[in-house]
């Protein structure tokens, strides 16, 4: 008797996990780096601001969570067809 694996890792699953990791890293950068020290290509980079962009970090964390949830959904075993 063969049973389908409960978790199926598909290419999309890995892609979403990678995206989640990237966004977690971005969130951490926003939480710990003042706006004037952010990489120039980051939204919120300001030459003279010394505050951290906490809200940008929360947004990045939100995207990471969405990507992780998406990844989780892609692991569902295929539905049995009649």
């Amino acid at each position: 008797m063969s049973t389908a694996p409960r978790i199926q890792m598909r290419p999309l699953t890995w892609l979403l996990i990678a995206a989640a990791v990237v966004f977690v890293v971005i969130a951490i950068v926003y939480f710990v780096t003042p706006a004037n020290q952010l990489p120039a290509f980051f939204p919120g980079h300001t030459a003279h601001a010394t505050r951290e962009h906490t809200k940008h970090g929360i947004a990045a964390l939100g995207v990471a969570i969405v990507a992780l949830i998406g990844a989780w959904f892609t692991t569902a075993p295929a539905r049995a067809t009649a």
Partner: protein
Amino acid sequence: MLSYFQAVVLGLLQGVTELFPISSLGHSVLLPKIFGWDQLAKAQSQSESFYLAFLVALHVGTAIALFIYFRKEWYRIIGGFFRSLANRRIETADERLAWLLIVATIPAGITGLLFEHELRTVFAKPLAAAAFLMVNGLLLLAGERYRRRAEVRELVAAHATTHSEAEVGRRLDTLDFKEAIAVGVAQIGALFAGISRSGITMIAGLARGLDHEDAARFSFLLATPIIFGAGLIKLPDLFGTLGNGVRGQSLVGAIAAGIAAYFSVKFLMRFFETKTLWPFGIYCLVFGAICVVAFI
């Protein structure tokens, strides 16, 4: 700084205008100016002020009232969310509604986090708010006209429907995720003082064939996490130095906002069983025009 009388007035105002499709942010800019509370009117567009800390409490009060009113639906939605996570499938109406709300919250949530501060400091000023209030009125009236078009009727006919006293509409759980994103994108408009969150999301729902009652229900359910989240993120302002001298007033204002919001949503859910957005559209046009003339 901020009297208890002002706190109660502003709390009641916030509770009513957050849910009536007439823009709470717009009214919280316009009415202090009309009442001659110039210090409060100016504080709206400042980068940091005690008034913003006070508004945080009003938002939390409003969100709690919304949650209490829709508590039975929220229990089902939250249950549906966890069930769908466990099964990795979306099968029931409650599970679907949970994900529709999550998907629809993302666009305005992210945009608000990134740009709310900039938009507020630029646009939360009396003249701009009055102009946007007129735009809000036009949008409400245009949305009502669009709702009557043949393509919307076809959209309704193509899905499972609900029948209220006055109209036929699509069932809320027949919305697809692209449509939920569209409603969520529409909600970004509410970042401009004068554009109503509930109004613009109701219009988006009506345009996708929902009846007024379900469009309002989806709008209020959608508003709850975003209003609560916006309040929670800024809660440190209230407990930090910005909140010094206004914490008591904030508590009183939040209670007033919560009571006003509860009775507003109760009234509006009955109102939209039989009536439309027309009165609110006309009110926004007239009040906005009067304010534009007064502030020029």
